[in-house]
């Protein structure tokens, strides 16, 4: 009996794979529109961006730019903006960290404790997306304004000095970033927490883990994929954002995105921001 227990693995069951293999013959034809789309819509703009970044910066939007393989654009971009880079990185990192702290309990509650309200909660998390990014950020401007309720309240309880302000400070910019990118953190966290089998948590309890130990040894490790993807999805767009710094900060809080936007839309200096972005 002992021998029989350590059975060799069962032979492969290749039926489905085989089926796919046969169907795939003509199936790949269907990929052609998709591949074309990716080529046109993603690869082409990227290549275009790259070449534009090497144009001669002495041109102008009206006259056109000459292709001079002007690699010096990259050097200019890095020197010109090292400050901005550091600041963008810092703001994005703080934003990501605050988002993680806020989103984890939220996602945990939605995944494990919301019961029948789960879908309602998820819709509420996504709801802000149905309003324009710009408008949402502008509302923050009103909320944090010097006459606004938050500032008054903080001044009243003397956390903020009477002449202190929230708007036009790094706090305001980061608050806006956190607000705008919180769903990007919450949804991946929720997705991976929702996949955690509740029975594993019960098993940890059965094996002498207090609720906190169970969380530390089972729930959290199993949610790590969500932490990683949430961090990426928050950090990358947050570091490129310019709306929040523009509306909630001053030029002192400007991030790399503002410089790019200014160069494109105001100065119409095309090669510069693209080098900046590609570097």
């Amino acid at each position, binding site marked *: 009996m002992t021998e029989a227990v350590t*059975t060799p693995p069962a032979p492969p069951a290749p039926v489905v794979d085989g089926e796919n293999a046969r169907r795939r013959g003509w199936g790949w034809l269907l990929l052609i529109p998709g591949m074309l789309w990716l080529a046109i819509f993603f690869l082409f703009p990227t290549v275009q961006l790259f070449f534009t970044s090497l144009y001669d910066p002495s041109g102008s939007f009206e006259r056109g730019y000459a292709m001079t393989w002007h690699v010096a654009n990259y050097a200019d971009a890095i020197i010109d903006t090292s400050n901005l880079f550091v600041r963008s990185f810092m703001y994005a990192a703080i934003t990501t960290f605050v988002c993680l702290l806020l989103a984890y309990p939220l996602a945990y509650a939605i995944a494990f404790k919301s019961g029948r309200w789960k879908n309602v909660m998820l819709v509420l998390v996504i709801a802000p997306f149905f309003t324009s990014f710009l408008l949402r950020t502008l509302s923050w401007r009103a909320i944090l304004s010097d006459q606004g309720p938050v500032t008054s309240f903080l001044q009243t309880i003397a956390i903020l000095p009477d002449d202190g302000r929230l708007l036009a400070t790094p706090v305001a910019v980061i608050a806006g970033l956190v607000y705008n990118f919180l769903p990007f953190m919450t949804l991946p966290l929720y997705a991976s927490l929702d996949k955690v089998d509740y029975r594993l948590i*019960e098993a940890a309890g059965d094996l002498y883990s207090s609720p906190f130990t169970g969380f530390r040894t089972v729930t959290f490790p199993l949610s790590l994929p969500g932490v990683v993807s949430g961090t990426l999805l928050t950090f990358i767009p947050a570091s490129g954002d310019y709306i929040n710094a523009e509306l909630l900060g001053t030029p002192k809080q400007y991030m790399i995105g503002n410089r790019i936007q200014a160069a494109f839309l105001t100065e119409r200096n095309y090669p510069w921001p693209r080098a900046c972005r590609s570097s």
Partner: protein
Amino acid sequence: MTESTTPGTSRAAGKDLRLEGVTKRFGDFVAVDDLTLTVPQGSFFALLGPSGCGKTTTLRMVAGLEEPTTGRVLIGAEDITNLRPYKRPVNTVFQSYALFPHLTIFDNVAFGPRRRGVKDYQQKTRDMLKLVQLEPYATRKPAQLSGGQQQRVALGRALINEPGVLLLDEPLGALDLKLRRQMQIELKRIQTEIGITFVHVTHDQEEAMTMADTIAVMNAGVIEQMGAPGDLYENPETTFVANFLGQSNLIMVDVGDTSGRAVVVDCHGQKVGVESTRSHTSAGKGWLGVRPEKIFASPAGLENHNGSNVLTGGRISDVSFVGVSTQYLVRMPWGQELMVFEQNTGQRAAFKNGDEVDLAWSRAHAFLLDADQDAQAGMMTPEADT
């Protein structure tokens, strides 16, 4: 964990698991209804019943994953009713195994000892992996193992804590028939070696009969009957037990004289006897029960059945060959079809459809049940796989 429940002392006397008047309600639904039960220390105890009968809820209350609405759960003299799961000297082998997918087999098995701060957990884990024959797989992840191997990891992960009571929640349900049979033998061997109390929840009557010392048959939140497998099978007290534990022919009869050592009943005009120790009803109507394998079919009028009960006038209406045995349906004069199983010993030729037969059985093999019960009770659930 209190001093008195330290693992390792499970062999000491007085560690019986006791449930006293335990009731569990979910809203209006009564899952477990005033259950009182003692599981002697070191025994292999099976809770057998169809799905939804409350057996899993009972197990979860012992594990601490469910709180009784009323009643107490005790191990020895200690009341553990309100102890949190992680403080109970009880471990569970879950139906789904619930192995931690991010940990290796070694870390899965070492999980309990580590949480409890056991110093030599590495040696203990290696010993346990040896016991469940998984040493070569220590560094693998659960997903890389087969179902049977995962089952043994789950078992080892629970056993390493040397719990006072090991709870098994249909641990073999996810395995195919072959593996299930092997694991039954393995589990029984380990239980005999280690001597820990096993409480095994299952809906598979054969599994319960081959493994357990004592079986409690549960139905709708209450225990219908409890006893050794042979006693339950041979002398069921309710139609539910008669049908759920194996298969039974139940015939409506008039109960006559109950005074002597044997009860005489009138079975649609033919008189048969039942031993009074196997009669669970008084005068009036009753269900006469006979197991299909206890009935001997013989060509009509040909054999002399002295001392046995005989019913005449049967006619074979269906013949089903299943290898080890042939299963007949015999239509009786009053219209009912009775099952008769005959082992294919090859001693005589099989009957054919339409053959006329007499059915005989010893009066020591019938039982008499109360007529108020549903003759179909227990049949809506997995039957004896004869």
